[in-house]
């Protein structure tokens, strides 16, 4: 893409541009930075306005040694990881089918996939809760995984359609000429080409499950069964506020996610808007 040259900006406009962007950047970064700084302060200074005061890792050692943080983390990894793998696995062929074929039932399917993304939580949470209760799966990672598949499957199918759409249909045609049936074409030609798309879809499914709050809050009780979203709530309740532990936990949850995300983000947007605009 060529860069436009539209004459020179007046110095005043340039100052305005930078000033606005500096303010916006500060607003964007500050809360995250502040949590990072707070996590490095001793607990008794957590609520001071000093940027750095007697930096220490005490909050982190407390978190790792005296709280259930590690089991929450393991629960979250397990639930989000299995959800992602299953979601991508189940949805892959559907994404391909709706991208390549016109078949009776395609429009209703597309609509179902779209609509199920709009509503699940409010309407499904009670029946799923009762169902999991009947099956004895409340408080079990398996129950949460099944529940998260209600979100991940439609979403993965929808998003993968967008990625398959970006692979030229000529490749399918050449596969057909060489005598492959649609399954062979999908498996041997398209799936390898779509790997980056699958990875991005999987990543998205993972962070959606990772950050889910409502089901996790309702289905998981008892300190060590919680996921991170539930666990973090226990540090700051109506009655207690352990801001030091909360901030340290936040940093441990956010930094790996943020680093990974900043590398992947350009694919995320491309895939999502492509899938959505092309219905």
């Amino acid at each position: 893409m060529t860069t436009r040259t539209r004459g020179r900006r007046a110095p005043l406009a340039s100052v305005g541009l930078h000033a606005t962007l500096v303010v916006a950047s500060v607003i964007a970064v500050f809360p995250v930075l502040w949590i990072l700084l707070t996590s490095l302060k001793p607990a008794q200074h957590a609520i001071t306005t000093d940027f750095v005061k007697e930096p220490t890792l005490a909050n982190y050692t407390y978190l790792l040694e005296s709280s259930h943080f590690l089991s929450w983390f393991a629960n979250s990894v397990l639930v989000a990881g299995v959800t992602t793998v299953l979601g991508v696995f189940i949805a892959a062929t559907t994404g391909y089918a709706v991208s390549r074929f016109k078949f009776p039932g395609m429009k209703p399917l597309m609509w179902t996939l779209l609509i199920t993304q709009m509503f699940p939580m409010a309407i499904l949470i009670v029946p799923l809760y009762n169902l999991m209760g009947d099956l004895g799966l409340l408080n079990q990672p398996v129950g949460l995984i099944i529940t998260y598949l209600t979100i991940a499957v439609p979403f993965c199918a929808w998003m993968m359609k967008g990625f398959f759409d970006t692979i030229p249909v000529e490749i399918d045609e050449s596969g057909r000429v060489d005598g492959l049936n649609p399954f062979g074409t999908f498996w041997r030609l398209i799936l390898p080409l779509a790997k980056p798309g699958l990875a991005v879809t999987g990543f998205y499914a993972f962070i959606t499950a990772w950050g889910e709050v409502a089901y996790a809050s309702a289905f998981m009780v008892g300190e060590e069964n919680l996921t991170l979203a539930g666990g973090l709530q226990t540090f700051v309740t109506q009655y207690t506020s352990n801001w030091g532990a909360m901030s340290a936990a936040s940093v441990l949850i956010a930094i790996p996610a943020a680093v990974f995300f900043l590398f992947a983000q350009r694919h995320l947007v491309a895939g999502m808007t492509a899938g959505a605009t092309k219905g």
Partner: protein
Amino acid sequence: MAAHTSQSVAKAAGDDVENNDAAARGRSRLADGRNTGTGNKNGARGGLRRALATHWYAWTMIAPVVLVLGVIIGWPLVRGVYLSLTDANERNVARTIGVRHIDATYRFVGLDNYTAVLGDPVFLQRLVWTVVWTVACVSITFTIGLALANMLNRDFRGRAAYRMALILPWAVPGFVSVFAWRFLFNRDNGILNKVLDGGGISAIPWLDDPTWAKFSVIAVNVWLGVPFMMVALLGGLQSIPGELYEAAEMDGATPWQRFRHITLPGLRSVSMTVILLSTIWTFNMFPVIFLLTRGGPGDSTEILVTQAFREAFITSPRDFATSATWGVLILALLMIFALVYRRSLRKQGEVW
């Protein structure tokens, strides 16, 4: 690294559009070819058999998803609708206490729950606030996102660094950000009030006063939503050919005219998508409200979704039937919205 990213967003966005069109064209070609071919061959056979012969590949491929959706979404959905027609609550649903199993004793009550919910002024109150919340969040997020995208689309020193900083809120898991804000908003100990205090302004009850709480939840949601909006719109902006702007400039168009007549139409397809997505997300935005204010103070920031959650999981006894009723009503509202939105897209000649 960041400059490289921006180029790629543009390229990716552009390529996607082209490839999609190509794929769509190729697809219809492919489909047409197959249809006519099979049509000739199977002209005499029954319609169903012909459909099976033509489409069994596609149907087999979608089978896993249809199956999964049917079992884990379809069945609970039907049950949810059924629950909304009963008086089920914590005390009369089937449950197991220790080894003793107690059967369900709830009854079918018809539309009683609906008349109760709709007749209660609380519903209208929640609905109005949910709509205000959604419209405010989406419009503010879109405006700020568009403004920042336009700024970042220019060529100047340091824009890579700015973009990195501005995307950061999107990279942090939502519930973590919300807790960070809860910390900043804290009435006695939060940094915002400490700063105000330093400036001689008395503390603002960010989360403890109904009006300020509404302001706060919207502010946090905007903060969370701007990066996505900005990145998507930036991708759209970079796919608008620069020649259009040059030509307009030659013709003496003012910056505002260029924005109005080139930028906005050029962004239309991207805007439509992000507005639809963020409207749906915001309407159902559970974590921000639940984690920041728990719907409070009182019930002033409770939106429809958090109200449904409250009925089933917070109030005592847990009222499953009423919660399901709220759920069905939310679903109905969103479906109406989707239909209206689709109709308006159709009128403007969009794909679907």
